[in-house]
C-alpha cells in the first residue's frame, strides 16, 4: 500500500488512491461546525474513509493463502468498501457541479445546501465507518450533526420550490397527496368515491354473508 504512489498512478474516480500515504495518516482538521461547509475538508473525509476501508480489506485478503477464498470470506466487508467508494464519487461530483457556472438568483446557494446535506447525512448514517477508520473524531461527528440541523433550517422555506423545480406534471406524479395545488383533502374524497365498492351503499354479499350474522 505504501508503494501505491510509486506505481502507475490511479486515474479517474480512483485518483485519490494515488495520495494513499497522506490519506492513510491524515486527521481531519474540522474545528467548528461551519468547517463542514468546506468542500476540501468534506472530500478528504470521504476519501480517507473509502481508502482506509479498501486498504483494510486488502490487508485482510493478504491473510488468506488463496485469494478467491479470502474474497469469498470477506464479501460483506468488500461490499461496504465498494459503497464507501461510490458515495465518495457522488459527493465529489456534486461538489464539482457547484464549481461550474450556475445561473439564477439564489440557485447556487440552494445547491450548496443540498450538497452538504447529502454529504453530512451520509456521515451521520455511516458514522461507524468514519469513526472506526479514525477518519473523524466523535467531536467532529457531533459538529457535523450541528451543521446538518442548521442546513435543514435553511432549506425549509425552499423545500416546496425545490421540488417544483423537477417540473413534474400532476399526470406524471399520479398522486393526490403531491398535487401541485395542494388541494389534497377534497381530492382524496373524490378518489374514494370513485372506488367500485362505493358504487352501491349496501355492498354485494350483504344478503348472503352479512345479514345472516346480524339476524342470528
Amino acid at each position, binding site marked *: 500500500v505504501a508503494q501505491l504512489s510509486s506505481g502507475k498512478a490511479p486515474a479517474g474516480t480512483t485518483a485519490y488512491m494515488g495520495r494513499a500515504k497522506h490519506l492513510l495518516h491524515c486527521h481531519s482538521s474540522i474545528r467548528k461546525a461551519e468547517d463542514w461547509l468546506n468542500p476540501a475538508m468534506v472530500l478528504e473525509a470521504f476519501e480517507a474513509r473509502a481508502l482506509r476501508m479498501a486498504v483494510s*480489506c486488502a490487508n485482510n485478503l493478504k491473510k488468506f493463502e488463496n485469494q478467491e477464498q479470502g474474497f469469498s470470506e470477506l464479501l460483506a466487508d468488500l461490499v461496504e468498501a465498494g*459503497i464507501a467508494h461510490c458515495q465518495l464519487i457522488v459527493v465529489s461530483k456534486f461538489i464539482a457541479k457547484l464549481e461550474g457556472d450556475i445561473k439564477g438568483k*439564489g440557485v447556487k*446557494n*440552494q445547491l450548496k445546501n443540498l450538497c452538504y446535506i447529502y454529504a453530512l447525512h451520509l456521515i451521520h448514517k455511516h458514522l461507524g465507518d468514519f469513526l472506526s477508520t479514525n477518519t473523524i473524531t466523535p467531536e467532529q461527528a457531533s459538529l457535523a450533526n450541528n451543521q446538518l440541523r442548521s442546513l435543514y433550517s435553511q432549506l425549509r422555506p425552499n423545500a416546496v*420550490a425545490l421540488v417544483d*423545480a*423537477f417540473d413534474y406534471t400532476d399526470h*406524471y406524479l399520479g398522486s393526490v397527496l*403531491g398535487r401541485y395545488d395542494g388541494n389534497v383533502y377534497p381530492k382524496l374524497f373524490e378518489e374514494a368515491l370513485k372506488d367500485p365498492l362505493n358504487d352501491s351503499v349496501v355492498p354485494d354479499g350483504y344478503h348472503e354473508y352479512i345479514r345472516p350474522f346480524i339476524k342470528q
Partner: protein
Amino acid sequence: MEGDDNLAHERNKAEFDVNEMKIVWAGSRQAFEVSNRMSRLVASDPVFDKSNRAVMTRKELFKNTLRKSAHAWKLINELRLSDEESVIFKYFMDQPGFLDLHWRMFVPAIKGQGTEEQKQKWLPLANKMQIIGCYAQTELGHGSNVQGLETTATFDPQTDQFILHSPTQTSSKWWPGGLGKVSTHAVVYARLITNGKDHGVHGFIVQLRDLDDHSPLPGITIGDIGVKFGNGAYNSMDNGFLMFDKFRIPRDQMLMRLSKVTREGKYVPSDVPRQLMYGTMVSVRQTIVSNASIAMARAVCIATRYSAVRRQFGSQNGGIETQVIDYKTQQNRLFPLLASAYAFRFVGEWLKWLYTDVTQRLEASDFATLPEAHACTAGLKSMTTSATSDGIEECRKLCGGHGYLWCSGLPELFAVYVPACTYEGDNVVLQLQVARFLMKT
C-alpha cells in the same frame, strides 16, 4: 386536522429562482424545453390517463397498455417527434410496456452487436415496428450469472443452421419484458456450440411468432410468467418465458460483429475486442442511475408537498396545528432524500459524459479507462437504486397512513421501482465488482 387548500404561501417563501433551477435540473435550457413540452403533451391526452389502473384486471391492464402504445406510436409519427423527443414522450407515458424493451434493448443490441449486413436487414424492420423485439437473456435458473446460461445454439453444417434448444426447465428464458405475448422476435442469448465445442454465450436474432397470425412458431413454447408485485403498472407488461425444442434459425442470425461462425462451422473470434460489450453495459447502467434520480425526485415531490399541506399537533388554545414539514424529525428524514435526488441527478449527468468519453476512446482502441468506467457504473447503479427504493418507502411513511393509499402514487411507484435493485445485475453482486476493482487498484 384541517389541511391547507393550496401551496401558494410556500412558494412565496422561496429564496431562489425556480425557473433557473428547472434548467439546472434538466441539464440545459433545451433539455428543459423538450421535457416540459413532452410531459404536457402526454398529460393533456386522455388516452394516457392513469387514474383507473388500480381497479383494472390483468387483461384490461395489458390491453390498455397496447392501446396506449399504439396511440403513442401514432402520435410520434404524426408529430414527427425526434428520437430524443420520442424517448422522453414514452418516459412521461409512465406505463411499462413492450415499447420499452423494443427500443431500449432489442434495437440497441442489433446496433451494437450486429454486422453491417445484419443491421441493414433488421433495423429498418425494427425501426418501423414491422417486427417487435425483446431481449431474452436471463433464464429461470440464471439471472446475474450470465455465464451460467444453459440454452444451447448448436451449429448444423449440413443445413447451415443453428439449432436452439432448452435442455432443462431451468434453461427456460424467464422475465424478458414483451416476450410473453407481444414480441415477434427476440435477441436470444445461448451457448454457442460448433464441432462439439462450447464457445460460451452469444447473441442470436430469433423469430418467435408468425408475422401473419401471431401464433408461436413450431418448436417455440412461449407465455407470460404471471402476476407481479403491486397493483397496477408492471402488471401491464407481458414479462415472458420461452423454451426452444430444437428450433432452427439460419446461420446469419447469429449476431456476428464480435465473432463469427463460418459456413464450415469454424468459430472465428473477432478482432474487435470483447471489451466493447462493456461499453453497452456502461450505457444501460448510466440510464438506470439517471432514472434513480427521477424516481427519487418523484417520491420526494409527493412527500414534500404533502408534508407542507398536512398539519399535526402543536396547536395551543385552539390555534392552527403545525405543518409537519416544520418538525425536525420530518426534515431529518425528508431533506436528505431531497438532496439525494439532486445528487443522483448530477452523478447521472457525469456518467453520461463518462459514457461519451469511453465510447470515443473505444473507437480509438483505447481501453484504458473501460475497467474503471465499468466498475463505477456498476457500483453507482447498485448504490443509487438501493437508496431510491428505500427512499420511496421512506416517503410513503413520511405521508403517514395516506401514503398507503394507491392514489398517493407511492405504492405503485415503489412497486414499479424496486425491480431496479435486481435487474442488470443484483445490487450486492454489482457492488462486489467495484470492490474487486478497488482491490486490483
